[in-house]
């Protein structure tokens, strides 16, 4: 019951004021050469904590396909602190994030030729930078991020390039 209440509150929060983001991404590091370019979709929201900085919350889905219908999918839930360099809430910013991989699954063929589904969670650390701007009163955010998911003594590391556009049923002048 508490989980449902939390999920409903989170969904309501996102709907009121949020950014929809699309991104292309690439897994990097050991054991990633078989992965193709990945893609992701996110919803991100936040609230101001000072003149030029915001606390942010983001949830999304990352998908990294491989040949043969195999691949990896992860659902990161992250909290971050976005700090615009000139303190205006627009322009260039940096954003460290921490979070939790709500659900991760990798489907692959092991060395014996058997299909294996590996499910995991894990903690997430990310560091990103981006640029906030507006066109016709619609806010956009172009960003570059490095993210790592740690679980079971290994890590999935990715580089992501994304663009987001604000939407919502509340304020329309948001930067988020």
């Amino acid at each position: 019951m508490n989980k449902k209440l939390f999920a409903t509150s989170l969904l309501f929060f996102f709907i009121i004021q949020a950014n929809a983001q699309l991104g292309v991404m690439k897994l990097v590091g050991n054991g990633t050469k078989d992965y193709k370019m990945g893609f992701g979709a996110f919803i991100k929201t936040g609230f101001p904590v000072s003149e030029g900085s915001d606390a942010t919350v983001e949830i999304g889905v990352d998908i990294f396909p491989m040949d043969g219908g195999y691949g990896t999918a992860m659902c990161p839930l992250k909290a971050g602190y976005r700090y615009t360099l000139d303190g205006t809430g627009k322009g260039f910013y940096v954003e460290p994030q921490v979070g939790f991989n709500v659900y991760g699954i990798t489907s692959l063929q092991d060395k014996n030729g058997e299909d294996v589904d590996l499910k995991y969670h894990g903690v997430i650390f990310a560091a990103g930078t981006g640029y906030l701007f507006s066109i016709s009163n619609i806010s956009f955010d172009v960003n570059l991020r490095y993210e790592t998911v740690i679980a079971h003594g290994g890590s999935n590391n990715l580089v992501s390039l994304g663009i987001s556009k604000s939407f919502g049923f509340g304020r329309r002048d948001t930067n988020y």
Partner: protein
Amino acid sequence: MKFYFIAIMAMILFSSCLKQSIPDAMLASKNSGGKGSITATLSYKINGNPVNISVADADNQSLYSYYTLDCSKNTGYYNIEGISNSGEITFTFYTDSLTVGTYRRAISYYDPFVTSYNGENEYLYAPSDSITVNITSYDKGHISGNFSGALTPMIAAGNPYNTYGTPSSVLITNGSFKNVPVFY
């Protein structure tokens, strides 16, 4: 703000040093019963000539060809086998239950060759021949230990009789093995 950013960057750098992706780490752990990826080694000298065998991720040697380094269970005995480009060695232990301890194998006309080195086979053939294996640990399906022996070379294969060289003239010294997986 600066502190948190630096802390997160430090965590990212730390995690990037992890040598495996999450799926690789999970597979290695699954296949080794939780011990992680294990490298098995076996080395010895045959008449002073060194032979070294090392197998990374030894628990995942291909099932569709022969193992490079393993200990296999058979009815009434175990067999350790190591294969390299320069030599091959086989130990046979006549026991139903492999435990830490010393096993000595002497002359047997029914044994296969014990070693080969540069294409020549050596056997437990003469009464003075033997090979002694000391298993010092047997943990989570992997054995470690040492061994030594004296064997007789086969000069030429024949029918019905082979031609052998000087008894006990092939010496196995400085033999050791570590983390050799036991397959059942």
